[in-house]
């Protein structure tokens, strides 16, 4: 493989790393005064990367021309589509952060730099076609994420979230590495292509153990049950802009990585991982729905909601067909819009001193004091619940359709039944906002950037989003087809 061609394929990653290094120098030189300027610059870089990646997604790039560095890195349409979502979510995390941190006098110039490096790690993750690339990308993202979770040093909950995330994340990385070393030992190669070839036919017991350990490590990163325990604590403790980031971009990256590992590397052994994925999907949906019922904190509620959504996305993976993979990508795109919208709305809930309001009881009667905000939050909640006119329904619909077409009727039925349980707590939030006596706590104002982001995500998940379905479905189909080339 020509070296120059490889460099051209990793252009977005090169741009991110070089500008990350430059911005780091600027932040060391100028100090925290420049935080806002550096945030803007980092957002511009992410925007530029977005347009660098977009052509590959639109043309459905695949095949040997997209492989860089001897097949370790792939800039194909699948990676591209995941990257578009990651860049968008990363950009949102940059936009909403300064106003939040400045309230605590804690905005530091390293925040945008860390976000940039986390996004770089995620973009390496989704392009991984080799176990080592997978691990490098995952660790780059995770290390930046541990620091971001503890970014609000004066807040004990933030420090606790960072420590918990770090200890459990390190354990999960260890499990993943153990699985990778077993896989390497029993297949003799680290490349996904080679693993697929080596595993054609009978699967050795050791390779099966490797697969199980790798899936356990990845399940931690996507917070699928039974590796979800850290999610509510970390999401509650981390600063809200960071939580918005955690719930959107790393989820996309880790799920895309799980798809690559299961469908590409272990694609020849789908019976081996299907039962694990089915269990994780059902358990995530049920525990995500039941766990959320007792929550009184909005961030914890959204954490359980993200566990629940991961379960629905895994149903598409259990189908194991191109349609299932495409449905997962469509769901992920809608999920990112819903999550960003939800967390931006939570960020905009402030009392008169500008402190965050996170308790569900405090947003009682929000529709009378803040009709616009309450309406957007209602849209997000209904969309997360999957209630028909909203776009969230479409994601669930395509996933269930893929599962039924692949012959998993029972799985789809359980998923639909559990989504009814889940609807209860989403609608409870709407009921508290619209029918309870106003608590009159939310009084703070938000700047235009928050409103703009909220409006964009509300528009995307509104029924208008259905205009996007042919286009989004087409892109997702082309991207998902990349994963099935080797079959």
């Amino acid at each position, binding site marked *: 493989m020509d070296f120059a061609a490889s460099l051209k394929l990793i252009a977005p990653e090169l741009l991110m790393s070089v500008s990350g290094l430059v911005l780091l120098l600027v932040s060391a030189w100028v100090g925290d005064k420049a935080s806002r300027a550096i945030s803007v610059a980092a957002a511009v870089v992410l925007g530029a990367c977005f347009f660098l990646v977009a052509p590959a997604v639109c043309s459905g790039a695949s095949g040997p021309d997209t492989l860089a560095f001897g097949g370790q890195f792939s800039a194909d349409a699948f990676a591209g589509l995941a990257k578009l979502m990651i860049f968008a979510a990363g950009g949102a995390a940059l936009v909403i952060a300064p106003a939040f941190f400045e309230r605590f006098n804690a905005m530091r110039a390293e925040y945008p730099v860390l976000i940039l*490096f986390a996004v770089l790690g995620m973009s390496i993750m989704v392009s991984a076609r080799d176990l080592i690339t997978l691990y490098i990308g995952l660790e780059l993202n995770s*290390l*930046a994420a541990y620091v971001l979770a503890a970014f609000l040093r004066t807040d004990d909950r933030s420090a606790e979230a960072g420590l918990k995330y770090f200890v459990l994340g390190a354990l999960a990385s260890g499990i993943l590495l153990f699985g990778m070393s077993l896989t390497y030992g029993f297949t003799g190669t680290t490349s996904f292509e080679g693993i697929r070839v080596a595993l054609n036919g009978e699967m050795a017991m050791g390779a099966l153990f490797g697969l199980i350990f790798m899936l356990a490590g990845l399940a931690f990163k996507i917070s699928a049950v039974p590796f979800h325990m850290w999610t509510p604590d970390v999401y509650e403790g981390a600063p809200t802009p960071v939580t918005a980031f955690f719930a959107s971009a790393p989820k996309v990256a880790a799920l895309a990585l799980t798809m690559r590992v299961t469908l590409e590397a272990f694609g020849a052994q789908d019976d081996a991982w299907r039962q694990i994925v089915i269990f994780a999907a059902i358990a995530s949906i049920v525990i995500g729905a039941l766990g959320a019922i007792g929550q009184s904190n909005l961030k914890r509620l959204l954490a359980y909601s993200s566990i629940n959504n991961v379960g629905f996305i895994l149903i598409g993976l259990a189908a194991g067909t191109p349609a299932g993979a495409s449905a997962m990508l469509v769901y992920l795109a809608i999920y990112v819009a819903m999550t960003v919208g939800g967390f931006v709305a939570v960020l905009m809930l402030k009392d008169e001193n500008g402190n965050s309001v996170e308790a569900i009881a405090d947003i009682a009667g929000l529709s009378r004091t803040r009709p616009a905000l309450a309406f957007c939050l209602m849209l997000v909640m209904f969309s997360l619940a999957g209630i028909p006119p909203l776009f969230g329904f479409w994601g669930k619909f395509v996933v269930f359709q893929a599962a039924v077409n692949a012959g998993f009727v029972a799985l789809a039925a359980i998923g639909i039944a559990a989504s009814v349980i889940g609807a209860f707590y989403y609608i409870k939030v709407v009921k508290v906002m619209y029918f309870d006596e106003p608590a009159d706590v939310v009084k703070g104002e938000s700047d235009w950037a928050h409103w703009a982001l909220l409006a964009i995500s509300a528009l995307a998940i509104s029924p208008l989003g259905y205009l996007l379905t042919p286009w989004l479905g087409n892109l997702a189909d082309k991207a998902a087809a990349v994963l099935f080339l080797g079959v």
Partner: protein
Amino acid sequence: MIQVLAFYLFAALTIASATLVIMARNPVHSVLWLIVAFFNAAGLMVLVGAEFIAMLLVIVYVGAVAVLFLFVVMMLDIDFAELRAGFVKNFPLGMLIAVVLAAELVLGIGAYRAGSLELGTPDGSAAPLLGKSNIESIGALLYTKYLFLFESAGIILLVAMIGAIVLTHRERKGTRPQIISKQVRRRPEDATVNVKPEVGQGVQL
């Protein structure tokens, strides 16, 4: 012959110093014995022709890990005598764990010898260069095939460093750092005054 002698020398010294690590009364001595054990293990690695791992042992374990241990031992006020108390009480548990580990070793080696373990065949993409030392082979791989991953690993280390600084560095108010240019610019007339105190009076500043 000399290799066999060297092997038994290094092996015996490794085991002896490892025993002394856990037997030494003074924790600083324990760490020093650990360093001796690392050096002898490095010697063993050179004997089997893995000079890169031998270098890693010396550079990473002696140079960084052991020094870190020394720091911890010296800086933290840990009562090692208390930690070591209850040796007799915990002895059966320790023996049990040792037996389990030994049984695992025997089982593992037995299974491997019996040939019931079918490992994958390496794809040959990372085969060592003919007639080159393994340091050259590793370098050739790291800077060609794995260049991208090698550089990305560098960014991971950078992020770890940024993280440590972000989480611990605090701007302190009221510190008086040395400003060398200011010191150099200062002239004698700025710093000294010539006064002529009256007889029986103190100096008024």
